[in-house]
């Protein structure tokens, strides 16, 4: 009997090696696993038929991925924590997606794991009572029942969960809401395992799911025949070293966090659709039922997004970056009527890629896809996913409103601070958004060096950094930058802290330590945490180590604390000394109204003499008393505006004799604008 069993096992093992399929280490065998296809007309029927076909497949002896994976791949001690094989079939006419996910997950903790947690992000859009919708206050925007009826909700339904090499787990899941106990929220699923997974061991699951694709409330969904698919598949949370799950609900003010892994995704769509996705296109196969199956694959990524529309025009260009061995392909998916945006996107992309190659390291993947959403899908604009970004363009806006370039540069920057350096966007979003916004400012300063980088309209001109600083300056000092994204006072305080204050803080630090050193630090930090998950503590530790100086005072105040910064000239006085007719006693008092940061000060005398120094000590005020042959003309703190973190520039100087020609000019321009407006208004 034993011999017979051994023989059967031997045959099975040999068979597995001779017919390798997806999921095994050999990646050349995608033809062996073909997802089910359907025509658009048959979509609705096939939704129900799919499980039957799966059964038929097994009965006829075709090899499915999980069988081979189960039998061939040994349990590894190293390698990616997660590996996803996903087959997805988009049923465009009924806005549904049928999916099968084969997940391999390795327990990297020192604790046996008896349950898993998954993100089911799509359930954020299942009704107005979910945590996402409540935080977004959609119920306010859609008060009436009629308005609510018009909303196209979406959801993800789990059809089946099976442990490969184990049993059915479909009955073992429940929804949990670890952040707010909202019983209506189903964005986190907890799955009880039959047996705990020991440390270092790999667990394999097969999950079948069905998506109902919503309208695009935020980042994902469909509008007409434009589909943007983000956060669409069951995604396992991150197991922390203490054995606890890092798996938060989908919040309005937060983005995402996941382990790095390998993704192989088969996407079946009607053949008229143009597809763009994370990763590299490995194979395309046309099917008899007017659909095409695309296979995309990438390693060292932590998410997978894709888009499909029959209206996209695909434009590809290659760039050879400094220090990169291979050319990188930029794939631009342009919406109809956006021809004028082509060069705006491509030029901004090339510039940003070159900037990062020069100052950090070259983009390490082979391809980057830039999605240009149509107007109706604008709510999916301005978002980042590994090797795929969505930018934004509105044809009717003039080119002097430079949002297209800004968004493109910003989103590409995320490929570094979210994609390659896996910052935690749930808990410490500033490590991605803040650092990335800092780089956005640096890049657009170079890119638009001869013009304004945000608005260059005849009556309104502004640089990007000015807009960021203004957003920060309007903050109430009630939230630290580094805190959970959904715990900010409101969306404005989330955005203005995490993006703007953090970026302006880093810009101020850069001005203190010098641009080259700052860029060198980021290069060091990025190399150190490439494909890892740094925390705020790691960032500060890296900064202090690199600078060989303790800058905790700065991070404690402005990142970990809620403080802002405000310097001022409190008073100035020049008194002629009676005994000495040509000598004045000059006195200036500088104050720190809020926060501490080293700052330059300058006193200029009427005879042109300048007295300047840097105020490094931490006292709240500083009195400078001098005896000079001339009285004071003006006193300024931060004369070159090197401390943009100062939230009020108006109190940074005092003069004896006001020179207001700048105000006259500005008032003249405003007055002229008003005069024209009146002229147009009536006559």
């Amino acid at each position: 009997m034993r011999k017979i069993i051994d023989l059967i096992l031997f045959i099975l093992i040999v068979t597995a090696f001779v017919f390798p399929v997806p999921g095994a280490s050999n990646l050349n065998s995608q033809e062996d696993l073909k997802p089910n296809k359907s025509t658009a007309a048959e979509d609705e029927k096939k939704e129900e038929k799919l499980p039957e076909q799966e059964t038929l497949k097994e009965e006829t002896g075709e090899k499915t991925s999980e069988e081979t994976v189960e039998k061939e791949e040994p349990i590894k001690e190293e390698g990616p924590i997660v590996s996803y094989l996903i087959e997805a079939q988009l049923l465009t006419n009924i806005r549904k997606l049928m999916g099968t996910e084969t997940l391999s997950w390795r327990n990297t903790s020192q604790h046996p794991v008896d349950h898993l947690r998954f993100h089911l992000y799509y359930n954020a859009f299942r009704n107005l009572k979910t945590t996402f919708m409540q935080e977004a206050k959609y119920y306010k925007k859609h008060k009436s029942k009629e308005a609510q009826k018009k909303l196209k909700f979406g959801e993800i339904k789990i059809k089946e969960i099976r442990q490969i090499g184990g049993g059915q787990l479909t009955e073992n899941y429940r929804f949990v809401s670890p952040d707010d106990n909202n019983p209506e929220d189903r964005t986190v699923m907890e799955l009880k395992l039959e047996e705990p997974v020991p440390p270092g061991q790999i667990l394999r699951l097969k999950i079948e799911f069905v998506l109902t694709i919503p309208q695009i409330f935020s980042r994902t969904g469909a509008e007409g025949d434009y589909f943007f698919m983000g956060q669409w598949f069951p995604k396992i949370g991150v197991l922390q070293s203490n054995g606890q799950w890092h798996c938060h609900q989908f919040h309005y003010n937060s983005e995402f966090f996941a382990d790095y892994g390998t993704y192989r995704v088969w996407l079946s769509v009607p053949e008229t659709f143009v597809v763009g996705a994370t990763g590299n296109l490995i194979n395309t196969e046309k099917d008899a039922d007017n659909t095409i199956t695309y296979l995309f694959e990438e390693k060292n990524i932590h998410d997978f997004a894709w888009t499909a529309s029959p209206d996209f025009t695909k434009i590809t260009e290659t760039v050879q970056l400094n220090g990169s061995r291979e050319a990188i392909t930029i794939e631009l998916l342009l919406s109809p009527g956006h021809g004028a945006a082509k060069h705006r996107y491509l030029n901004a992309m090339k510039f940003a890629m070159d900037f990062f190659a020069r100052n950090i390291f070259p983009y390490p993947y082979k391809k980057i896809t830039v999605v240009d959403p149509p107007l109706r899908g604008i709510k999916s604009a301005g978002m980042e996913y590994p090797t795929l970004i969505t930018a934004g363009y509105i044809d009717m806006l003039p080119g002097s409103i430079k949002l297209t370039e800004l968004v493109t540069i910003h989103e590409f920057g995320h490929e570094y601070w979210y994609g390659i350096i896996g910052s935690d966007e749930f808990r410490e979003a500033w490590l991605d958004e803040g650092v990335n916004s800092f780089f956005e400012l640096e890049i657009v300063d170079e890119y638009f060096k001869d013009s304004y980088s945000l608005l260059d309209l005849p009556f309104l001109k502004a640089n990007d950094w000015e807009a960021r600083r203004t957003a920060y300056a309007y903050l109430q000092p009630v939230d630290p930058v580094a805190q959970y994204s959904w715990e900010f006072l409101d969306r404005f305080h989330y955005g203005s802290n995490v993006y703007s204050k953090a970026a302006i803080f880093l810009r101020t630090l850069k001005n203190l330590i010098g641009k080259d050193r700052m860029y060198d630090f980021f290069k060091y930090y990025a190399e150190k945490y490439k494909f890892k998950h740094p925390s705020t503590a790691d960032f500060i530790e890296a900064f202090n180590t690199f600078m060989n100086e303790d800058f905790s005072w700065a991070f404690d105040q402005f990142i970990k604390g809620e403080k802002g910064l405000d310097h001022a000239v409190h008073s100035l006085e020049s008194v002629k000394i009676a005994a000495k007719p040509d000598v004045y006693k000059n006195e200036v008092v500088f104050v720190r109204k809020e926060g501490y940061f080293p700052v330059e000060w300058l006193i200029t005398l009427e005879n042109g003499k300048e007295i300047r120094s840097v105020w490094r000590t931490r006292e709240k005020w500083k009195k400078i008393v001098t005896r000079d042959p001339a009285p004071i003309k003006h006193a300024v703190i931060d004369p070159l505006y090197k401390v943009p973190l100062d939230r009020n520039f108006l109190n940074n100087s005092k003069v004896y004799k006001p020179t207001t020609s700048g105000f006259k000019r500005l008032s003249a321009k405003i007055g002229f604008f008003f005069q024209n407006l009146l002229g147009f208004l009536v006559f």
Partner: protein
Amino acid sequence: MKGLKAFLKGVGLKNVRPTVYAWFFNFFFSLFIYLGYYWVFAGAAGKTRIAADVAGEIGIFTFLADISQNSGTSLSLLFSLAIMAAVLFFLVSIFVSGGIYSVLVGDERTTFSNLIASSVENFFSMLKIFLVNILNWVAALIIPGILLFLFLKIESLSLNETALQIFTYIWTAITLPVFAFAVAIYDLSRIFKLKEDKNVFYSLKKAIAFVFSNKLNLVAVFLMYAVSLLVLFLIYAIFNHFLEDLLYVFFLFMIYQGFILVRYFLKVVVMRAEIQLTEITG
């Protein structure tokens, strides 16, 4: 052709005083914006060095943002005053344009005393014409309004960018002439009221009939007006690009007033052309 001739003829007539008269009231109502903003700025930051840095080390955007954050009350007060000034100017423009039309229609000497006297004399009849013409404006809004409503109602169209672009062009092509005709009806009802001194509804009716029987001539007049304004705007854009920040504030201010004067000159030319047309075409 008649419209073109009327416009060109209007350019050569004595338009300086009516132009200055119209400009003066516009300037008067704008003056407090010039001064008001200056006072707010000087009050908030007059004793600082920031005025010297505006548009230099820091941009106007940052300056205005800091001012509005730190002197927000004064700025919002100024904004409210500006709205009140605009409303008041609305009434004053009825007074002023009535005077100019009256002098031009009566072929009187274009002296300031005549312009003021005519404005006073005709204010109430012009106000009535304005009120009656609300019907005209409502009618003018109906077609573009319905088009816009229908377009926005059909979501598949309004969210389709190509459709939106095509609609915008078509809508503009329809709306601009409709509004030009509405302006012409308002102008001509004032002219007929001054010429014939009859009931305001009669004037409006006659103006409508006149506009519909002289469509092409009026289109020519308004086209000439639009082209002239466009040329003026291009000159301003060039000035703005190359010279604006180099000139002393005084010269800058004077040039601004020059632009406004030319705008009113062109409006007076249009007024003359409309009167000419009523005389040529009977």
